[in-house]
């Protein structure tokens, strides 16, 4: 119901009405901020182009198929990408790949940009340049009642099994618990690797894994889908930002995207999107570059 309302409103929004509408439900196709025409003049090489966004569309709220029209992708990241494309005057195409393949796809030139809830770590910055746009809050998904009493990425996880996506930053954090577990005389935590979000959730539902630690909003979505079987044990803060990945050899594109993102944040459009997707405006982070040192 709410989705239909959003849809109708999104088609109605223009000009001065925008701010009002943002306060209501957010806006996917807001008019571009004023700075955008200047950016298009400064970076004419992207105007009229079709650029490809590599995504791992298994994260409802960020990027997933529209259940009502599976030919489309929807989510916060999708809307933000569309705003950036609109601002710089290009059209966005999408290429769905596994999470672990996001950056290889970018490196091979099969994609031009990655906006897919990927945390901008120094490790990953070796493969791509990142422009951060959001803070990271993780949630700990467990079976209803939290039978293993997991309280975060800490020694409470010793001896338990965590389901994670291949390539997720949580994987090394969980593995790094090993010495602490050993010191406490407990067995290490085991990590099961899957290739998408849905498989991780199924692992808990099937009793194969005890927890799945991922972005807090993804965890909330899972709890919403299976309220009788799953719950969020706790939230943890990770020292990362979510970033837009761009090729390392295209500094002009990186600069253009960064400038567009700054303009979009300044116009309030990003906050509007966070509200629209119920992600919490506290997620917003000022754009910063994360590049390999």
């Amino acid at each position, binding site marked *: 119901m709410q989705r239909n309302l959003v849809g109708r409103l999104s088609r109605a929004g223009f000009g001065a009405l925008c701010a009002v509408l943002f306060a209501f439900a957010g806006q996917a196709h807001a008019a571009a901020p004023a700075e955008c025409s200047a950016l298009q003049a400064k970076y004419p090489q992207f105007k009229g182009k079709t650029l490809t966004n*590599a995504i791992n*569309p*298994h*994260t*409802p709220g960020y990027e*997933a*198929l*529209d*259940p009502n029209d*599976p*030919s489309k992708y929807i989510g916060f990241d999708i809307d933000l990408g569309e705003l950036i494309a609109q601002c710089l005057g290009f059209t966005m195409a999408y*290429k*769905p*790949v*596994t999470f672990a*393949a996001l950056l*290889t*796809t970018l*490196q*091979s*030139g*099969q994609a031009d940009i990655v906006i897919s809830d990927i945390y901008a770590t120094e490790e990953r910055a070796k493969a791509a340049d990142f422009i951060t746009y959001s803070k990271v809050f993780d949630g700990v998904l467990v079976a209803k009642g939290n039978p293993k009493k997991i309280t975060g990425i800490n020694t409470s996880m010793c001896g338990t099994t965590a389901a994670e996506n291949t390539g997720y930053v949580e994987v090394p954090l969980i593995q790094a618990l090993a010495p602490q577990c050993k010191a406490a005389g407990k067995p290490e935590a085991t990590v099961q690797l899957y*290739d*998408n*979000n*849905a498989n991780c*959730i*199924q692992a808990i539902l099937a009793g194969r894994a005890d927890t799945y630690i991922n972005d807090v909003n993804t965890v909330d979505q*899972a709890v919403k*889908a*299976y309220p009788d079987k799953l719950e969020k044990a706790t939230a943890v803060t990770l020292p990362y930002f979510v970033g837009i990945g761009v090729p390392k050899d295209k500094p002009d594109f990186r600069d253009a995207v960064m400038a567009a993102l700054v303009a979009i944040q300044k116009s309030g459009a990003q906050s509007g999107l966070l509200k629209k997707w119920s992600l919490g405006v506290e997620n917003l982070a000022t754009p910063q570059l994360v590049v390999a040192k």
Partner: protein
Amino acid sequence: MDLFLHYLGLPYLLDGIRFTIAVTLLGLAGGLVLGLVLAAMQLSRIGPLAAIARGYTVIFRGTPLILQLVFAYDALPHIGIKLSAIGAAGLALAANEAPFIAEIFRSGVLGVDRGQTLAGQALGMTPSVLMRRIIAPQALRSMIPALGNETVSALKNSSLASVISVGELTLRSTQLASSTFDFFSIFFASGLLYLCLTGAIAAIQLMIERALDLDRTSTRGGFWGRRRSAPVPTPAGPTDLPPVFVPAPVTPSDRARRYDALSRNSTAVQINGVHKHYGEQPVLNGFDLNIRSGEVVALLGPSGSGKSTLLRCINHLEQWEQGEIRVGGRRLGFRDDGRRMNPRELAKERASLGVAMVFQQFNLFGHLTARENIALPLVWVHGATLADANRRADALLERVGLAHRADALPRHLSGGQQQRVAIARALAPNPRVLLLDEPTSALDPELVGEVLEVIRRLALDDGLTMIISTHQLRFADEVADRVVFLSGGTVVEDGSAHQVLTQPHHPLTARFLNVMGAGSTLETVH
């Protein structure tokens, strides 16, 4: 259930089938082409080609398809080859299927009876005619089940293309499951869609198998547009024997006159000092023999004495190390400069010199009817029109008493009938020399007579030059002008047939004839 049905009919999922089929078809088509090349390389006599093909097979059969997909999609762009997702998936699947399909091709080709290849070579077929007309049609029939299997496997393997963003059924299912959390209804629906696709492949496979079935009775004509007669049980009665046969009166004085007359004829086959070894074992040891036009020569000798090898050397189905063989004055298989001919040139030379061969195991082409076995080589090798060739085939079938079996496949003929068809096939191009390699040894005793009868008439009526290796002493006595006794790869005794058979000079000949019971089967005429 409602959800399952909803997803089963969801256009988004159904649309994914298009991509699944596209990737499968690309993979299969590419795999077939590449597989054909690999199989040809492995079957070729050229060492480096075979080695390259084997190297390819080791790599692409030995690594997971998923790695090959990622390689084609993400690594190739680094060397400037940027394929679309479907293109990369098709390429990787084709590269992966090729070695498997090549093995199917190879086993299909190797599965075709080697004797048929020899028979085709003896008829003067070039390697390409042999492959297209004889080996491929029969190999194809045996390959269909395995190719059906491979198609199903390729279809299922196409689901791995989901890792490189091809919007096929599996990718769409997993994405949909992530966004709706309807995990099981979606996967059951997509599982059923896959089952429909693989079921369709199985149905197509069965249809093709039916269409290619040589035994199928059809009034509409088979897959190749030809009508086949229904298999008829082989009649074993007297109607099956050659219609009329009056033995030519042969008296000792006739024989002597004929023997004299022949000795004045020109030389048809000349064998000088031929040496051949199988490994360490000498088979022909400085072999010399001259055969005159119109002469019928029976080669006798114990097993392993070199009879079959000699016949195969005469039409160059085998190589030898030393010595010279001339047929009609020409060195069959050698160019004017003395170098060996390639297989294609050799085939043409065999056809033009006219050396025909009849084999112990008949070696009829299994997929062709009796008439086609005789007629089609005339079309393929000698460029006859089909109508002329069929007329010739029918006349020859009439002559060997098999006009009523013209439309039968070899497998529906008795051994004796098959050998008579084989003789008719050998005679079709009017050869100047006919080589018969133990033509009755593979036959049941009651079928030997009908074949010998046919050969006897050829000798007496046609004046054809014939070299027959045989153990039928009585037949040799009646039909042959000369008997040549071989042992240890050389001629031990050579003379007029009756004389050698009844009054052998050499103790080896005498012992052999004694063991074969010559005394009881041959009447001694002085």
